[in-house]
């Protein structure tokens, strides 16, 4: 793995999908589509959008799960399911309960209205300290950070600025490539 470095595997920030603070969910989708068209099609497709403040600093990330969560028919029920989880109900029971409640509501209702009204700040996840990594760090350390935090990507920094995104999928591809070259 020593042959790979973070800077070789990361997606440069300039090629990543970004939107400004205040953008709607629909604008985030358009940014994602544009980045996918412009980016090298042989590589893995983008799955998330970064949210930038007025100075261009990354303040959050919107992933696929965050979008689906925002579009769920009734967030009050979502909170109920999360809330009763602490009382030792099984995951299977929560799924069963969720299905029962979802049968009472039309899934993904109002998708157009929500896409035009929901702001990215309302659904973005703010990166935690362990989601940043310096560009000179070894790939082994980066893998450990991805695994330990169950992250889909890390924000790569250089001189205190974000310069790229190290995605789990690119790291996995590199590992897989190394494996294939082993003489087993």
């Amino acid at each position, binding site marked *: 793995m020593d042959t790979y470095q973070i800077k070789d595997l990361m997606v440069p920030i300039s090629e990543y999908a970004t939107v400004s603070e205040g953008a709607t969910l629909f604008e985030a989708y358009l940014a994602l589509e544009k980045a996918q068209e412009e980016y090298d099609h042989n590589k893995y497709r983008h799955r998330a959008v970064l949210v930038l403040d007025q100075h261009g600093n990354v303040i959050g990330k919107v992933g696929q799960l965050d979008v689906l969560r925002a579009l769920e028919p009734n967030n009050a029920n979502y909170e109920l399911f999360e*809330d*009763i989880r*602490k*009382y*030792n*109900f*099984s995951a299977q*029971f929560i799924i*069963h*309960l969720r299905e*029962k409640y979802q049968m009472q509501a039309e899934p993904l209702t109002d998708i157009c209205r929500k896409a035009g009204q929901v702001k990215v700040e309302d659904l973005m996840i703010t990166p935690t300290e362990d989601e940043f990594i310096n560009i000179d760090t070894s790939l082994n350390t980066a893998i450990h950070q991805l695994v330990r935090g169950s992250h889909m990507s890390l924000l790569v920094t250089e001189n205190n600025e974000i310069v790229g995104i190290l995605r789990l999928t690119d790291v996995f591809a590199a590992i897989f490539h190394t494996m294939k070259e082993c003489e087993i």
Partner: protein
Amino acid sequence: MNALEKLFTRIVQRININLREQEFDAGPYVWDLIPKSQMTKFYAFYGISPDHPLNLQFRHSGLAGSYFLGKIQVTNSLLYKTDVRGDELKKKDDHFQFGKFEIPVSKDEEIVIEDSAFVKTLIHNYSHDPETLEKFFIKDTISTHYANIHGSPSDGCFLGPFSTVDLTTMRDSVIGTFSYVQAGEISHLNVDPGTVWVNSPHSFNFLYRFPLEKLKKYIHFEAGKQPEGILMDFVEDRKQDFQRVFDVVNIDPPANIPATASLDRYAVVNSVVEIGENVLVSQRAYLENSVLGKGANAQENCFIINSWLEGNNVTAHGAKIIEADMGADVFVGFNSFLRGQADSRLTIGSECIVMPHTIIDITAPLTVPPGHLIWGLIQNKDDLKTNSMPLSELAAVETAFFRGSMFFEGSGSDFVSAFKGRIHHILEANGAFYNKDANTGQGHAQRNQNMSFNTIQPYPRGDQEGLFPTILIQP
């Protein structure tokens, strides 16, 4: 700041340290709850009888208006009008069954209270924790008005008003107002107000949560204020009646008490009350114009008013029954509030189980058919449909069941069996099945007749005002 205030400050600090992860500050909730000036006003008292082992040890503690029975140590604690009943503690050479383990008890069990404060709380039963069979510990814990700590060792916990923790070891947890928890073991948990949770891991899980806006009318507790609501008003309105029985040294019992029944001298009996064979009425119970049939019981802080109990009725700690007719073998759980009206009576059929912390408050007559499970908040017939079900229907549930705000997972059959078994055990322990001809099946109703009471007093003035001197009471 005198010694009592210093002690209270230190207790609050201990609880806050234990609950720091949850950023819970007990101070604003409890600072005015324990009336410091009242700590000299009331004596403490204890029971002695040939049937209960005796070892009471009090050190650096305030005990105003509190009652003790059995083997109990209290150190660095403040108890205000709290009952600590050690009449069901395990004895040396008993065996405790826990899962596949049959564990010998190496010495008599004791209740050990340290660095804690309680307001009008009931502490009873025995430790169900297999890791601490001989020591029912309660430390760094604060509980507020009419809470029940029942068979539940506790370390670093806060219990809101009218909450109950039952057969559960708890650590670093907050139990919300009017919540009931029976879950074996909990740790670092914040139980929301109005939660009724009965969990037997790998067997069943029952959860009901009160609508908080509606519960507020009955009981509400916020920092800096006394608990408020119908439940508090109901109890406070009858406080003077208890004052009378505590002020008088010798009280003549009513003439019509059967020899097999027990009416505690610290219970209030107003108007005509009929008490059947094998009935147990505990201290701080309140009876008015009611009939308690054979084997019925009224435990601590119960109120039974203008009601008729057929027989073998369990009215658990803190339950209230008003203008109601209860069939035989009805169980009413902890702190339940069942209120009919003179012209709109509540009728509950035989062998019903009223879950702990149930509120039935009606303005039109309501009848619950026999053999039902009842839970939550019921104010009319529609509520009854969503908050009850036949026990036979629940027993058929094998995986999951939802109704209204009730969630159930697991074996309904196990749940029903567990409850019925426990109800039988409570009746047995209380002496409901006593046979006077064969002199078999003695329980609290028969043993409590051989009880005398002594009183102890705190320092009336000075730096130690409100605290009791070190006192050892042994055979």
